[in-house]
């Protein structure tokens, strides 16, 4: 009989919980019309390669750190030596820079290691496409995204390599 009363009381308790939830505001957003505000460090978007807005020089120095750290092994970079840049970040460039977005898991490691803040993530919802090629980011597409970041600054994620290293630096470290 003790178990019967426990069942009865438990039932009432459960029904109280559902009743309380019935009068809460709905958390559903009607997606295409309503959108959730994206956080400042949103990682779900696409990628971009940045360049110096003054001189138009690309920031990537082809060091391949992002290629080495990428857990999904989707980044491929080849190095090209060229003329020294006016802003003094070196004389090496990336020749080929590809990122296969299909397998990206948004871990942000490539951005954390980038010494020149060349690769960044954009604060837009993930681009959905119908083809595999649509998710394959060549250097041209990444540079296009970089140009869009200059036009629409709200699209840029707050996280860049320099900032991420600053934020995660242990206290008292040089």
């Amino acid at each position, binding site marked *: 009989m003790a178990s*019967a009363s426990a*069942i009865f009381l438990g*039932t009432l308790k*459960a*029904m109280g*919980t*559902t*009743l309380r*939830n*019935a009068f*809460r*505001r*709905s*958390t*559903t957003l*009607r997606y295409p019309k309503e959108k959730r505000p994206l956080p400042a460090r949103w990682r779900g978007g696409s990628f971009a390669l940045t360049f110096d807005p003054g001189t138009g020089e690309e920031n990537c120095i082809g060091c391949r750190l992002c290629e080495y750290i990428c857990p999904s092994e989707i980044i491929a970079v080849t190095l090209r030596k060229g003329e020294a840049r006016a802003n003094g970040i070196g004389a090496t460039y990336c020749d080929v820079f590809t990122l296969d977005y299909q397998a990206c898991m948004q871990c942000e490691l490539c951005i954390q290691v980038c010494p020149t803040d060349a690769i960044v993530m954009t604060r837009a919802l993930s681009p959905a496409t119908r083809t595999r090629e649509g998710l394959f980011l060549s250097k041209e597409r990444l540079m296009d995204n970089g140009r869009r970041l200059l036009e629409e600054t709200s699209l840029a994620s707050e996280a860049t390599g320099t900032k991420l290293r600053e934020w995660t630096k242990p206290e008292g470290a040089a």
Partner: protein
Amino acid sequence: MIAALILSALVLSVAMTIVAYMTWLERKVAARFQNRIGPYHVGAPHGWLQPLADIMKLIVKEDITPRAADRVLFNLGPVLVVVPALLGFAFIPIGPGLAVANHAYSFPFFLALASLTLLGVFAAGWSSNNKYALLSALRLVALVASYEIPMILALLVPAVLSGSLSLSGIVEAQRGLWFAATPVIGQLSLLLFLVCALAEGNKSPLDLLEAESELVAAYNVEYSGIKFALFYAGEYAHTLAMCTLAATVFFGGYLGPAFLPGFVWLLLKSVVLFVGVLWIRWSLMRVRIDQALRLNWLVLFPVALVNVFLAAFWAAGR
């Protein structure tokens, strides 16, 4: 004759429409309990055309009969589920002395018809030639056959209190006071009936026959298209029949203040009871089969027996 035909067609179409809209109501209420919106985009205010869209979709879908199935029983199953569940509405009085089949023993007839859906479900589970469907149907038979006993004992109470076996007589006996308001006996039998109706109508927490993790879906795994829709409609029709029965024998059926016609009162009471069933359904998780049967034989059955005795003493002492 013509009047009876028109009345039965009316009752049938109203019942079918309500059954279709019960699916919409269930999704809406469930969504509310889970802080969601539910169907929204089909039909301007809150997706009110969703049932229609669902029916259209299910009609258009491919109708598959498995090669190894027993064809006759397989096709008979859905019909055997829907027809008895809808036939029950013929006995429900929708006004003073007004029912499609006004019979002196309409109460036992109604209960017999409500139990017949079991046959259709078992036919479906057996003829599908699928081990999950068969196990699910067997579970249902074990559960429903046991819950039938306390349910009928609980429903004996209104019959004893009113001294009548016709649903019209039971409603008329509630002119003074609803049987749900009879001290202790009324509330106890209502509670017993609601628990048993959950088991009979395969509603959570006693919807053991559709334990997805054990039985894939239910006895209707092999069904698709319109036949699946018939099972779905049959289940909701059965639940609606149970809610209408509870409204009739415990809450005074068509009785109510005169500013609304009798059948509207009956409808309102049934829908309120259905929302109550949904409330229970979306609050509790499914129990195990042994827990369900223990609850039935060790708690509900003795309590129902004692309750019938109390009701008999109450009726004799009046």
